[in-house]
């Protein structure tokens, strides 16, 4: 039985920050940064983080699929929100994965995304393994990284079978203390060393050696590699390595730098997804991740995916809201603390008792369906909203149900980190109606009847205890 990729999914924040706008903001002090002011990068809304992006990528990957066969869920990130609270458990609960699956957080290095995939492919699990890599990379204002770092998430479903999208051929790795960048525990920002040294002494020597070792062991000549991607290191490193390995330039995967930026642990996963979206049957795909050495994997493309409602990377790239406000970017990323007024002072303490009692409703967006009158509803209270029957409801997941705006308004009074605060009654086709926040609205606005999709987001920030509340919000379907 072969092992490999059964499905994939991606998520990129819709906001794309203009790098020219970043350069303009710094021109007074650092005019030389203008050379980096090309293209754009993904920008998380204030309410997006590794957990919310991971859930979106995971949902995209599992669209229409059976979830009860999933035996493990790995979440790889260097920027997950919790240090002691397994991020995978929160994301996995939102994905409604089986509670009996193995949940693991991978971290410690941007290599974690590819490492988690390798473990899943190597591992002895009998069921399907969901591997999600996500990062929301934080960079100091006016640093080079502020231009380069992006945010995003990629999800891969690994399992055994005969009808795989891509077959796992093998992996290899080298681990050495080559430190191109690091971030000490508790620090906000990375510290990076000179690019020339990273490129010449690190990438150019370590990556080709690792890739060659794998290809030699697999008996595959580099001329057979049809899709090559390298994550980590300075822009252009992929071309440098490909040249050394005699991989033709047309077989290098687009590096995503112009539209997304470097998404850290998510980058190798997104590169692999990029390959899956373009490869033909039999193509060899090689993805490497450079970080304290190198990790590399090889896949052989099986039957390319058929038409589906999957967003994937291509769909994520197309879902775009242009952003040019540097101050908004600083505010969203928490680098400046604007005076939001006294309305922002409200305490947002979460009762963890209540959170646990209602976790399937809050994280999983599972409402109820009345066994007596069949009304679908949220929240799931003891008595049915329609007929009053007590304890008659069975769980009914709402996250993937079609919905549209019933009523809405743009609220300029309410405190919101992204004003105006769009709020309205969301009408689901199955009958449920819920008062919800509407986000990522874009210039088109919303009106009665606007179709909506659901997404997990941070509902409120708890600035005292730092336990942010998560709940679902509605996004206009563009």
């Amino acid at each position: 039985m072969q092992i490999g990729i059964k499905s994939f999914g991606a998520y990129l924040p819709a906001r794309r920050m203009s790098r020219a706008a970043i350069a303009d903001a710094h021109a007074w002090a650092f005019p030389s940064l203008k050379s980096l002011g090309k293209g754009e990068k993904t920008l998380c809304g204030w309410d997006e983080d590794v957990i919310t992006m991971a859930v979106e990528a995971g949902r995209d990957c599992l669209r229409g699929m059976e979830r009860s066969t999933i035996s493990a869920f790995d979440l790889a990130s260097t920027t997950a929100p919790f240090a002691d609270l397994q991020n995978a458990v929160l994301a996995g609960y939102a994905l409604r994965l089986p509670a009996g699956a193995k949940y693991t957080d991978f971290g410690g290095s941007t290599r974690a995304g590819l490492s988690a995939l390798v473990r899943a492919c190597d591992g002895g699990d009998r069921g399907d393994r969901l591997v999600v890599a996500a990062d929301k990379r934080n960079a100091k204002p006016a640093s080079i990284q502020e231009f380069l770092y992006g945010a995003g998430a990629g999800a891969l479903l690994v399992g055994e079978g005969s009808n795989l999208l891509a077959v796992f051929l093998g992996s290899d790795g080298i681990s050495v203390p080559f430190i191109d960048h690091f971030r000490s525990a508790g620090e906000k920002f990375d510290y990076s060393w000179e690019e020339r040294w990273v490129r010449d002494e690190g990438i150019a020597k370590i990556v080709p050696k690792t890739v060659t070792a794998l290809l030699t062991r697999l008996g595959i000549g580099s001329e057979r590699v049809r899709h090559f991607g390298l994550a980590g290191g300075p822009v252009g490193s992929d071309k440098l390595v490909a040249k050394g390995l005699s991989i033709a330039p047309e077989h290098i995967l687009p590096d995503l730098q112009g539209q997304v930026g470097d998404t850290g642990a998510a980058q190798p996963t997104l590169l692999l997804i990029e390959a899956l979206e373009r490869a033909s049957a039999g193509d060899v795909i090689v993805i490497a991740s450079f970080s304290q050495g190198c990790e590399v994997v090889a896949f052989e493309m099986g039957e390319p995916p058929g038409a589906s409602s999957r967003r994937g990377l291509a769909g994520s790239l197309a879902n775009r809201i242009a952003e040019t406000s540097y101050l908004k970017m600083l505010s969203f990323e928490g680098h400046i603390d604007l005076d939001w007024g006294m309305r922002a002072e409200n305490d947002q303490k979460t009762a963890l008792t209540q959170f646990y009692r209602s976790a399937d409703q809050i994280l999983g967006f599972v409402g109820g369906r009345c066994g007596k009158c069949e009304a679908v509803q949220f929240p799931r209270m003891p008595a049915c909203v329609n007929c009053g029957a007590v304890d008659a409801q069975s769980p009914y997941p709402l996250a993937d149900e079609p919905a549209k705006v019933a009523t809405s308004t743009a609220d300029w009074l309410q405190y919101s980190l992204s004003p105006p605060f769009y709020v309205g009654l969301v009408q689901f086709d199955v009958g449920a109606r819920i008062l919800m926040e509407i986000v990522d609205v874009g210039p088109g606005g919303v009106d009665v009847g606007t179709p909506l999709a659901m997404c997990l987001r941070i509902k409120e920030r708890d600035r005292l205890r730092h336990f942010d509340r998560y709940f679902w919000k509605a996004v206009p379907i563009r």
Partner: protein
Amino acid sequence: MARGIKDKVAIIGMGCSKFGERWDCGSEQLLTEAFTEALADSGLEKKRIEAAWFGSCLDRINVGNSAIPLSTALRLEGIPVSRVENMCATGTEALRGAAYAVAAGAVDIALAIGVEKLKDTGYGGLPAATKGTLNDLWMPYGSAPAGFAQLAAGYRAKYNVSKEDLKKAIARVSWKSHQNGAKNEKAHLRKAVSMETIMNAPMIAEPLGVFDCCGVSDGAACAIVTTPEIARSLGKKDLITIKAIQLSASAGREQGTNQWDGSYVQNTRTAARAAYREAGIKHPREELSAIEVHDCFSITELVTMEDLGVSDDGRAWKDVMDGVFDADGELPCQIDGGLKCFGHPIGASGLRMVYEHYLQLQGRAGQRQLKDPQLGLSHNLGGVPYNGVCAISIVGLEGR
């Protein structure tokens, strides 16, 4: 079906503080101001009051929980005092408690009083409050205008009214109230405002601009009630009696099912039907002399006209433009200036509305006095249109 309390309770004294930004005083002084006026109006000694119902909504910025702040402020020695809270219907809830106690024969003379001190928040508008540990986990915190602004979207869609026409009609609602409020020395905002100013005011929650929103102020209002028999024994004539007090609270249907189209407030319809039944009113537009409705936002007042049955469904925006609810119109609405000009100290508003009817029915309303009023309706709406509480009270001349 219950017989109700029509004409079983008489109001023999009322008081109302000056509403506004009362930087000069706290809730205790506001309570005292309203109570002193009501007690003098009743001609009673304080010791005749046998029980009190105290309405206050926002405990954190007001006087705190329980009855103690009232019994302490007014020095009500040894009588039962209850604190009631039901969002914006709080003032009417206080009246309801006092009236029911008298109607039941539990006490002879009771006090209903409400207060709110909104200007101790440090900012404009209402403070955001917790909605409980479960709701806080999922319910978005829109502002109050955001909750009511959604009526505009629902109303426009249902009756195919253009954005421009509805904006003009709701501006006309506020214009009319400012005309009235300018004549009321107890109102907070006492300036007439032009349609142009209202239409072009900064946006708060689409389509509500600043002038589509009621003021935010401090205030207290108070009523002393007893039975008509006792009132007469005290030498009172031309009694003003309670005809009906009804309340309706959401059970989640509007917010949780597809059975509400956003163009009306079901609680108002339910409470109004019950109140008309209790008061024996068949044709409200003809029988009512004046109405004081919960114009927290102009759009609320507009749809309330339909919910109360004084405009046909889909017609209120035209009735408003035709001046039906102006001071000299067919059915004057907000003759005292409404929440628009008084602001909305939550615990006090319901009683403040009854106070205006009380003055009008006694012919004491000065330059606002209507000709020969018989019946007045007050309407409060707490929460949001799709999840809230409605309280309606009707008062009038005895025997009417």
